[in-house]
């Protein structure tokens, strides 16, 4: 009997190629995902050095950050964006890489495409030039964001120079109350442990709340690991994972499926394994959570008041003052009732079918406030098609949302979807950094999809449980 190990340790050991001179590990990357923003310079670096792509069959590409969501007519109006998509297509063709292009029916945000295609699998190492690569950890993969020079390293060698992380187990016990969602869980975790609490750690999410979550909910949680400072976050693979994967295009079938499932079960953390740290959070303590400041850790329950400078610890006052000034919020006032100009529904955090289903339950028969511009952006073409099959597009449109094509959209505004001036956006995305949504003075309040639906309807930051008449009592 070998020493019990956690998933991270098992995957690390299995993928360690050798030790480098500086003590780092040359780590094998099973699967590499690329998109148009962080890859062109990497291909340029390969060309400059006369190198080729070592294992092109292990790299998969799509286009997401710069694509307009209101029209798919090419060339794009934005000449820079158009140059980027053409550059990607050229690199794909030159190196024989599998590409989920706009006309494929499979395009979407890179972190939606991997799981949908079954490219994302338990026990694998996955790298992508995007920090939200942590999303894929929902499947029990060790998945992390990398820079462009590292994209080059993976293309040229299928490896990275990496240092091993410590592992923190985050146990979410009990049950969530009605009106509380996966997004609230991760915002609560980040708020509790801080935006730098995860530095040096991989997060392992577990406990009854996480075990009961669907794969889409687990992806929402793992997606924002990086916002808590953890480069990757994962959930141990289980029957929920396998049921999601079975039958997807890049997943083995027949006898190979049974072998894969056996392998995936074995990669889960062993009972009694070591963690460098363990944190327990009671599911019942989590409320609908919203950000008030300029990073995802500056978050409060919807029932709480915006903090004051005086009430904060000395070391935090400067940051709180800066955030209050940018957000134009009154210190000590309730966050509830803050006027909203834009509702953004989408992103790799909350642009999945279950997000649209849940919000549509409450949007049915309601109207977006005339003061609010509301856009709904499916995370992928598959999400869009499935929502339309279910008639959810009609619910969103009837309520007054614009129904768009798949892409990153207003999460980071590298495309025509942007805030204007100091507009305040109720957003299902992952970052409320200054300027993140395209206007230097724009303001972002992060929240769950149902909370964005409530904000869209009332025109202000609202408690969705009140707006939609949801009981607060825990279901027995």
């Amino acid at each position, binding site marked *: 009997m070998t020493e019990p190990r956690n998933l991270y340790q098992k995957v690390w050991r299995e993928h360690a190629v050798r030790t480098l001179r500086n003590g780092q590990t040359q780590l*094998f990357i099973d699967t590499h995902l690329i998109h148009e923003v962080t890859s062109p*310079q990497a291909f340029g670096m390969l060309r400059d050095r006369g190198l080729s792509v070592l294992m092109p069959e292990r790299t998969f590409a799509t286009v997401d950050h710069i694509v307009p969501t209101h029209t798919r007519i090419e060339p794009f109006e934005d000449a820079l964006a158009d140059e980027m998509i053409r550059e990607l297509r050229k690199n794909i063709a030159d190196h024989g890489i599998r590409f989920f292009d706009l006309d494929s029916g499979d395009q979407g945000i890179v972190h939606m495409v991997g799981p949908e295609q079954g490219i994302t699998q338990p026990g694998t190492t996955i790298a992508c030039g995007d920090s939200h690569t942590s999303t894929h950890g929902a499947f029990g993969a060790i998945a992390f964001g990398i820079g462009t020079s590292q994209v080059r*390293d993976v293309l040229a*060698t299928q490896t990275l*120079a990496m240092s091993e992380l410590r592992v923190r187990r985050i146990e979410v016990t009990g049950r969530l109350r009605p009106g509380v969602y996966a997004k609230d869980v991760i915002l609560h975790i980040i708020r509790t442990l801080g935006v*730098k609490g995860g530095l040096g750690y991989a997060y392992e999410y577990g406990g009854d709340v996480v075990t009961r979550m669907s794969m889409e909910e687990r992806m929402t949680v793992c997606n924002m690991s990086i916002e808590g*400072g953890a480069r990757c976050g994962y959930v141990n693979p289980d029957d929920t994972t396998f049921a999601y994967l079975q039958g997807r295009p890049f997943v083995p079938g027949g006898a190979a499926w049974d072998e894969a499932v056996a392998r995936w079960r074995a990669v889960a953390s062993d009972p009694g394994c070591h963690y460098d740290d363990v944190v327990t959070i009671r599911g019942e303590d989590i409320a609908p959570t919203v950000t008030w400041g300029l990073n995802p850790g500056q978050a409060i329950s919807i029932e709480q008041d915006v903090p004051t400078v005086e009430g904060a610890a000395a070391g935090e006052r400067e940051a709180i003052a800066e955030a209050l000034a940018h957000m134009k919020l009154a210190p000590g006032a309730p966050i509830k009732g803050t006027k909203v100009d834009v509702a953004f529904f989408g992103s790799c955090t909350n642009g999945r079918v279950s997000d649209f289903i849940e919000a549509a339950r409450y949007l049915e028969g309601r109207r977006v406030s005339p003061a609010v511009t509301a856009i709904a952006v499916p995370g992928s073409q598959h999400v869009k098609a499935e929502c339309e099959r279910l008639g959810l597009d009609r619910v969103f449109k009837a309520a007054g949302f614009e129904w768009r094509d798949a892409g990153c959209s207003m999460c980071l505004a590298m495309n025509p979807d942007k805030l204007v001036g100091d507009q305040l956006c109720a957003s299902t995305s992952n970052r409320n950094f200054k300027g993140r949504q395209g206007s230097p003075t724009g303001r972002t309040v992060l929240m769950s999809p149902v909370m964005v639906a409530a904000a869209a309807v009332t025109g202000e930051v609202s408690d969705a449980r009140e707006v939609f008449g949801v009981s607060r009592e825990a279901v027995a």
Partner: protein
Amino acid sequence: MELRQIREVRGRAVPLPGDDIDTDRIVPARYLKCVTFDGLGDALFYDERHDAQGEPTGHVIDEPRYAGASVLLSGSNFGCGSSREHAPQSLARAGFEAVVAESFAEIFFGNATTLGLVCAAVAPEARRALTEAVRADPTLELVVDVDARQVRAGSLTVDASIPDSAREALLEGYWDPLGELLEGVPQVEAVSRRLGRPAAAA
């Protein structure tokens, strides 16, 4: 692949207030619409250095007394957020050779080190002392000593933390790991055969 051995960075510093300086602030996303990193030096902190009309706001980086600084002095969790290498590329192209901060976000740290941009972490009180010293005398030369893991400024010497792996790589001149990774390709191919290819279309 011959790289420079980086034992220290010497130069004047500019103190940037605040913690959690994210990469969207360092380089706003619209400047990521490029297929090369050329010209990114001008995008550095663009939205903080310019108002809505594109006029200078008098940001600390643009203050004449800090002109020509090659060391950026900032707070904790520097470079958090997006994985965009555009952020350290922009710093390097704007003339910065080192960042001294209370702590660094991991992806930023790795990206910066791969470019030979030195990241040295110092304690909060050390950051305060360095900031005060630089504000009092902007001509003060900082020495970011990679070998000794110290930052020195005039009579002030503070300990700096640089992980062993980064320190080794900077001192020995292999901070860009590609050359060494390529040497391992035969072993990589063996690992690839052992693990098989998980994502293969049926």
